[in-house]
């Protein structure tokens, strides 16, 4: 009899401890507060736009390509065109015409180093037209790297022909 009482007392105390130390004990016992909802009578629920614009796929350009795109549009697109096809508005009077950069064969034939050389040193130094100016001093190695990263995305958008 004494032994049972003792066990019972210990059990009760132990249970009390477990309950008191339970991290979720509070919400278990008291529940959570209901959120106050402030209704606006003049606004119909169907008026609310719940479009999921945030879900629209983010254009798949990385940081370097994005920077490259900005530089390309600022410095290169005047002659080479927005999509790099050599049809920029300043190309009209040029002879020879600017290179079509989206050309798949051109893209595969040129390594990044080749491109960097022409962009940095200009067409004259590389034995091409001197209408392609040198950008090395304006852009520097890193930004030319961005531009090349973007150029590569221009070729990828072409359907592959055989």
């Amino acid at each position, binding site marked *: 009899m004494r032994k049972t009482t*003792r066990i019972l*007392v*210990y059990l009760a*105390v132990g249970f009390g*401890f477990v309950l008191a*130390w339970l991290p979720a004990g509070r919400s278990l016992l008291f529940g959570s507060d209901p959120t106050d909802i402030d209704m606006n009578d003049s606004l119909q629920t169907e008026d609310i736009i719940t479009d999921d614009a945030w879900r629209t796929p983010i254009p798949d350009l990385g940081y370097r390509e994005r920077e490259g795109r900005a530089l390309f549009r600022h410095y290169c697109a005047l002659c080479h065109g927005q999509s790099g096809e050599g049809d920029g508005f300043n190309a009209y009077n040029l002879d020879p015409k600017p290179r079509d950069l989206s050309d798949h064969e051109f893209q595969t034939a040129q390594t990044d180093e080749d491109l960097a050389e022409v962009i940095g040193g200009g067409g004259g130094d590389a034995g091409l037209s001197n209408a392609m100016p040198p950008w090395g001093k304006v852009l520097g190695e890193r930004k030319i790297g961005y531009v090349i990263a973007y150029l590569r995305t221009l070729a990828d958008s072409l359907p592959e022909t055989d």
Partner: protein
Amino acid sequence: MKLEKMITGSRVWRSIVRHGVEPTNRNRVLTVVQNVFLHLHSAKVRRRNLEFSSTYYLGAVSLILFAILVGTGIVLMIYYHPSVPQAYNDMKELKFVVGSGMFLRNMHRWAAHGMVIVVFLHLLRVFYHRAYKPPREFNWVVGIVLLLMTLLLSYTGYLLPWDQLAFWAVSVGTNMVKAVPVLGDRIRYLLLGGNVVGESALLRFYVLHCVILPLALTIGVGVHLWRVRKDGSVAGSSGRKRG
């Protein structure tokens, strides 16, 4: 004279000081021999009090846990700076960099939880067995003080990791202190070393946790055990008549 008699004749006095107050030689000897600070080793112990008797070992377990806490605590101090925000960074160092750091920190933490539980169970058992009755009423009081110190150690240790849990627990706890009549605000001010839980509060809690409270607890445990030797342990208390 009458006041002195009233004090020395009182129950509280007699539960602490067991010998008479008359200036006899016997009392002079007893003053020394029956004082834990002047005579740690008991001059006379009942054989029964030394028996390795059947018990729940709750007191012994708390003592061992305390020893573990002291050991791990000292080791953890090697990698801890009581400063904002370095304290929290040090927790991260223990977790991610220091060899066995997390193991020691967990040992310290679980031993602390365990000690609070075991000390409390120890109190329940003493209470259940009515071991607080004379001659052990003084030791009961000492025990209660030890329980309070255990809780205080636990509480001061809570702030040291300097995380959100610690910060708010101590903010709430020290605001409770304000409820103490008259002195509440002042106690909180002293405890925190200011009005907010900040750098100085962390340092104060650190000193309390690592030096003042452990020292006090060690002394208290000394008195407590010494009294146990003199008066017999809980195990022997129930069902036996004094004398």
